[in-house]
C-alpha cells in the first residue's frame, strides 16, 4: 500500500486539547463553542496517511500523537494577496510636505 507520508517525513499533526465543554468559563461565547486545538511539527515515527492518527518525534525529542494534517508544511503568508495602493499615496504626501511643494 502507498502511504501519503513515509516514516521519517517532516509533518504537522493536530490535536484537540480541550473540547468545547471543557473550556474555562471566562471566555467569549464564540470561543466557548469551539475546541482548544494544537498543532506541532516533527518526524513521523511510522508511515501514515493524511487524516490518520500518527505519532511523531518533535525537535525536542517529545513523542506526540495527533491527526496527520500536513506533510512538509510550508509558510504561505507573504506581503498580502492584493497590493494596497494607499501606501504609495502616503509616501508622496509626506515627501511633498517636507519638500514644501504641497501647496
Amino acid at each position, binding site marked *: 500500500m502507498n502511504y501519503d507520508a513515509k516514516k521519517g517525513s517532516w509533518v504537522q499533526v493536530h490535536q484537540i486539547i480541550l473540547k468545547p465543554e*471543557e*473550556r474555562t468559563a471566562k471566555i467569549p461565547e464564540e470561543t466557548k463553542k469551539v475546541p482548544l486545538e494544537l498543532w506541532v511539527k516533527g518526524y513521523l515515527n511510522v508511515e501514515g496517511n493524511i487524516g490518520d492518527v500518527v505519532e511523531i518525534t518533535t525537535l525536542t525529542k517529545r513523542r506526540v500523537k495527533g491527526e496527520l494534517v500536513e506533510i512538509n508544511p510550508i509558510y504561505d503568508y507573504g506581503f498580502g494577496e492584493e*497590493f494596497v495602493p494607499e501606501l504609495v499615496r502616503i509616501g508622496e504626501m509626506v515627501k511633498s510636505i517636507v519638500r514644501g511643494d504641497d501647496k
Partner: protein
Amino acid sequence: MALDMSYKGVMSRQDEIIKKSTRIEYSDYEINKLTFDYEKMMKDTGINLQDIIRIQRETGVGNTPLIELKNLTRLVRKISPNGKGARIFVKDEQCNPSGSFKDRRASISVYMAEKLGYKGVAAATSGNYGAAVASQAAMRNLDCIIVQECYDSKKVGQPEILEKQRKCECLGSEVIQLSVGPELFYSFLRSLEETGFFNASLYSPYGIAGVESLGYEIAMQCREQAGKDPDVVIATNAGGGNLTGTARGLIKAGAVDTKIYGASVDLSGLHMASDIDFNRKSFTTGHTGFSIPFTTWPDRADVPRSAARALRYMDEYLLVKQGEVFFITETLAQLEGMERGPAGNTSLAAAFALARELDEDQVIVVQETEYTSAGKHPLAQLSFARQNGIEIKFGNPDEEIPGKNIILPEHPSLINSRHYEMDKLRSSYIKNALKVVDVDELQDIDIEFLAEETNTNVDYVKKNLYK
C-alpha cells in the same frame, strides 16, 4: 501513578511547576496576599546592570544605534506652530540578533537557564519574544520550545503571528501552535512539566532586568548626541516589561527628570480571547487589549508576581489608532529610508503627535524599532484586513472603529496623541487590588504598597479606597 494531565490536574500543580522551572520562590517576597517586596525580588537575581551588559555582549545583544529622525522632525515642524516640533530620536533595536528589544529580555533568562544546568528553555509567547528566546537558545546550545496562540478555529492565522512562528522554527525551535484562548497557559505548563525546561517567562525578574540596559544606553547616547537627557522617552506598551525595564535603566543612569510615556494601539471593543475578533485586528501586540489589563493588574502573567509593573513608572499613556501607525510606518520608510515593524512604530506614531506640542529644543526618544518582513509589513496587514472585510480608507483616524475600519490620516496633522487618563488606570488598579484583599484587611504597609504600585501617594490611595 501516572500524573493527571487534565486541565484541572495540571493547573493544580501550577505552583510546583513554576517553581521547578524558574527556581524562584515567589512566596519569599510575599508579605501578605497583596503586598510583596518588588525591589528585593529584582535584587535577588544577583545580576546588576554591569552584569547585564556583559552577558548581553556575549551574544551580541544591545549597543544599538540611537538615530535622529531629521526628516520626520522636519515634517513635524512643517505642520506645527512656529517654535514647536521636538527632535525625534529612535533607538534602532532591530539591530539585535533576532530583530527586536526582546533579545535583551531573552538574553538574561537563557543565560540563567544555561548557568543553572537546564537542557532547554520554554516560553509562552505569540510575539517577537519567541524569536528572541529561540535565537539566544541557539547561541547557548539549548533546546527551545515556544508555545504560541496562532490560529482561529478555521486555522487562519494573522500574517504577523505566522511570521513570528516561522522565525522561531527557522532559528531551530520547536513551536507548539494553539488556537485562540487563555488556556494556552495549561498547554505551556504541560510542556514545562514534560520537558523539565527552564521557564524563560517574559515577566520574570531576569526578563525585566535585561531591558534595563536599554534605558541606560538611551541616557548615555542621548547625552552624547543631544547634549542632554531626553525630555520624554516613549515605549510601546503591552505587558509592561518594555516600559518597566527601560524606565529602571534610565533611573540607574541618573536620568531622573526624563518623563516616561507609554503608547498603545487603540483596539477598544475587540475581545482578545474571541475566536471572531482574533483576526480582525491588525496589531498583535502593543495594543490596549493587553496593555490595559496588564497595566491595571500585572499579576495576570505566567508567574505569580510579574516583574513588569508599568504603572510604577508611567507618567502618561497615549493611544494611537491602527491607521496612524500604518501611516507612520510608511512615512518612516519613505522619509527616513527605514523599514521597521509595527510594535516599535506604535510609539513612533505617538511621538510624532506629541512632538507637535513640544518645543523645538526638546528631545523625544522612541525607545525601539523592530524588524519587519513578510507578514508584518503594512502591505500584508492591510491586504489581510481587507480580505476580512475591514474597510480601509483615508480620513480622520479619530473616527476609526477597531474591527470595522482602518482610517489612514488624510493629512499627517490628523495624527493625534490621545491622553488616556492616568487616574482611570490608577483607580482601576486599586479596584483590582480589592479583588485580592478586603478593604477592611488593609494595613499601612499595603496602602504604601498601593502608592508605589500606582506611582502616587498614601493620600491618593486612601481617597480611592474609601470613596
